[in-house]
């Protein structure tokens, strides 16, 4: 089949979101099932794209409008994008199912539209091959995230969304100034052509431009000191949306950051930018783990833990080596699985027992054994115990860090992991050894989703090689810029 059909990944969620206001008169349940149908179709297309890219080994280049880059915009669906588009689609499908029981607040039709557009934005950010187009998709993601954060209409939610809007708005403006600087000095917006011309760029301009872009993306990527919005937003947003934030919205921004950094690796001032990012990433891990230690709300605690993991990924990407990037991608996959499991389970507890405070988790092992089991698997995996998936990616990140000589960063990150173990095991103790309770009927469908994710955690933990192979190919996609440029059919304008 023609590779251009991969553009349906963008077209399908868009046309479906626009379709919702047309038919919403039929009823609320129609909207809910429509959401499941669309995300299922998206998963099908993503699976086809994944299969296509991994069997041929060639990226799919979608050329919008038939204008070859750099005149037109192209999507670049290589190993990385194919893998993550699939992850995005699968997580969205799960969350569409979860939304049926988790989202009761009106208006459900607006929720469905914003949900689809959040998925679309993250897909576009990962697939695009043009920096201004990246900005547009980042805005789509960010603005639907603002609206979804405030969706529950409580005071808390409004405040969280307000913080997010202000920080996000400032971040996007900086990103745009960075894009303007790069365009001003190179005269092109296409990522492949930027990579080609990067060596000719004035080092000062490149440093300022790249730093502004990283600063702008750091808001979405939850890097310290720009992540103050994240714990509030995670706590206040509807439960399925929290899962989407942690499973792929933040990943899309991290990926965009890594992609742009490596594209410009020929620039003279490259190493100073990397060093800045390493410091920020290490601080993210340490600060977030320490903050998680004192939380009374389990959802907020896991939100901090998620930020810490994201810091680890950023650290891996900032090392500037093949091993680091591969480990970062591997951790991205593992983190997406584990945090989807944890937020899904905690969200389910919160809607069943009315809130995610620690008190509600007392005796959970007796009240909701299946959910408690899922939380336990997720918690143990996050800490990084062998035979669970996160262990392998954490080890690889630490090894890669030491390899480059940043022993201080590795030591700080490892000590932060000890802190992580403390609060997760405290939570496990609360669940299994405290409190009493009657057994509550648990939803079969949600149990099935949790079982699938938990099984994935263990299977990757026991047989990491297959997923590691995927991560290595995807990492190659980011790190090997020469190959990236070669794959994009530039039409030689001006070059």
């Amino acid at each position, binding site marked *: 089949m*023609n590779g*251009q*059909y991969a*553009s349906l990944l*963008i*077209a399908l969620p*868009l*046309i479906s*979101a*626009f*379709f*919702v*206001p*047309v038919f919403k*008169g039929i009823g609320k349940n129609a909207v809910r099932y429509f959401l499941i149908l669309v995300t299922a179709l998206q998963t099908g297309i993503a699976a086809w794209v994944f299969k296509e890219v991994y069997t041929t080994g060639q990226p799919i280049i*979608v*050329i*919008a*409008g*038939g*204008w070859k880059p*750099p*005149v*037109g*915009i192209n999507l670049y669906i290589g190993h990385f994008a194919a893998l993550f588009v699939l992850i995005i689609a699968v997580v969205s499908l799960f969350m569409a199912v979860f939304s049926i029981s988790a989202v009761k607040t*009106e*208006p459900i039709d*607006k*929720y469905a*539209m*914003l949900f689809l*557009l959040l998925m679309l934005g993250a897909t*576009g950010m990962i697939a695009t091959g043009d920096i*201004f*187009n990246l900005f*547009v998709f980042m*805005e*789509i993601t960010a*603005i*639907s995230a603002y*609206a979804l954060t*405030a*969706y529950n*209409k409580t005071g808390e939610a409004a405040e969280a969304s307000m913080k997010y809007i202000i920080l996000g708005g400032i971040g996007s403006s900086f990103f745009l*100034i960075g894009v303007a*600087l790069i365009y*001003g*000095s*190179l*005269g*092109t917006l296409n990522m492949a*052509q930027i990579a080609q011309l990067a060596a000719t760029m*004035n080092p*000062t*301009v490149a*440093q*300022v431009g790249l730093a502004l872009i990283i600063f702008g993306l750091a808001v979405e990527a939850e890097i310290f000191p720009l992540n103050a919005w994240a714990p509030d937003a995670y706590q206040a947003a509807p439960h399925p949306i929290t899962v989407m934030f942690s499973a792929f919205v933040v990943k899309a921004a991290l990926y965009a950051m890594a992609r742009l950094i490596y594209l410009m690796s020929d620039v003279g001032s490259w190493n100073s930018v990397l060093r800045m990012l390493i410091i920020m990433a290490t601080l993210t891990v340490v600060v977030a783990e320490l903050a998680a230690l004192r939380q009374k709300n389990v959802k907020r605690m896991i939100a901090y833990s998620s930020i810490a993991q994201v810091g680890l990924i950023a650290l891996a990407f900032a090392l500037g080596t093949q091993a680091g990037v591969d480990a970062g991608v591997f951790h991205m996959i593992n983190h997406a699985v584990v945090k989807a499991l944890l937020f899904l389970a905690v969200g389910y507890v919160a809607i069943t027992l009315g809130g995610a405070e620690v008190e509600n988790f007392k005796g959970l092992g007796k009240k909701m054994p299946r959910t408690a089991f899922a939380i336990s698997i997720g918690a143990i995996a996050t800490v990084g115990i062998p035979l669970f998936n996160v262990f392998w990616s954490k080890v690889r990140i630490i090894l890669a860090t030491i390899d480059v000589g940043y022993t201080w960063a590795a030591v700080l990150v490892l000590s932060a992991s000890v802190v992580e173990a403390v609060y997760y095991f405290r939570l496990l103790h609360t669940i299994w050894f405290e409190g009493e309770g009657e057994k509550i009927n648990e939803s079969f469908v949600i149990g099935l989703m949790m079982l699938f994710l938990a099984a994935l955690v263990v299977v990757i933990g026991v047989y990491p090689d297959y997923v590691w192979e995927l991560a290595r190919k995807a990492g190659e996609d980011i790190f090997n810029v020469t190959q990236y440029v070669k794959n994009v059919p530039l039409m030689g*304008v*001006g*070059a």
Partner: protein
Amino acid sequence: MVVKRALAIITLLVIGYWLAVGLSQVPFGEDKMLIGQYYLDNVKDQTGAVNAVTAVVVNYRGFDTLGEVTVLFIASTGVGALLWKRKKKRTAKTEGSIVLTTGTRLLFPFVMLFGAYIFIHGHLTPGGGFPGGATVATAFLLLYLAYIAYEIPHRGFEVTEGLAGMGYVTVGLIGLAIGGYFLFDWIWQTWQFGTDNIGRLLSGGFIPIIYTIIGIKVGTELSGIIDNMVKEEVSE
């Protein structure tokens, strides 16, 4: 307080200096038009538009515009979601003066006509779908300001908005089916409709069609945002 302000000013000065150093190295105004020159040289033959900006925005980089339309859609949906109440009513108390209401009644059709003119002539004159749509929304804003009881027909507006968005994506999908690329300009490049007519109304490939869709969409969307914001909840 003073310390805080002084620190803020110093930080801003440092950032400003840093940006200025970066900017001073950028050769603005010099011949750095890698892609820009290509657009200027080929815009008429390849897209049929006389207005190079709209050709870039809708045709060469149409993917971005589709994204921007989506951003606006999210904004109006978001406002709608956050201000959603079971029952809402306008709360304005004083009717506008007779001069205002009469003036509005006279102006309304002219503003609408001008808005439509802007988005229909996007490929020929400055403007296009976004300014045209904003002008149309201004006409509805006038009605809201002049009359205390005026309300747009919501259901109709929402459906129109959705259909317009679907229309844009559908035009793109037809391009995928006919030309093999998403957002391919099939009217110009496959049908070659209007190729001998450059500079007149019936030319420009799918640009006028897409701009009409965008104009309708932006007009209904902004009117919807206004409507959501001027209303308050009534208890039942």
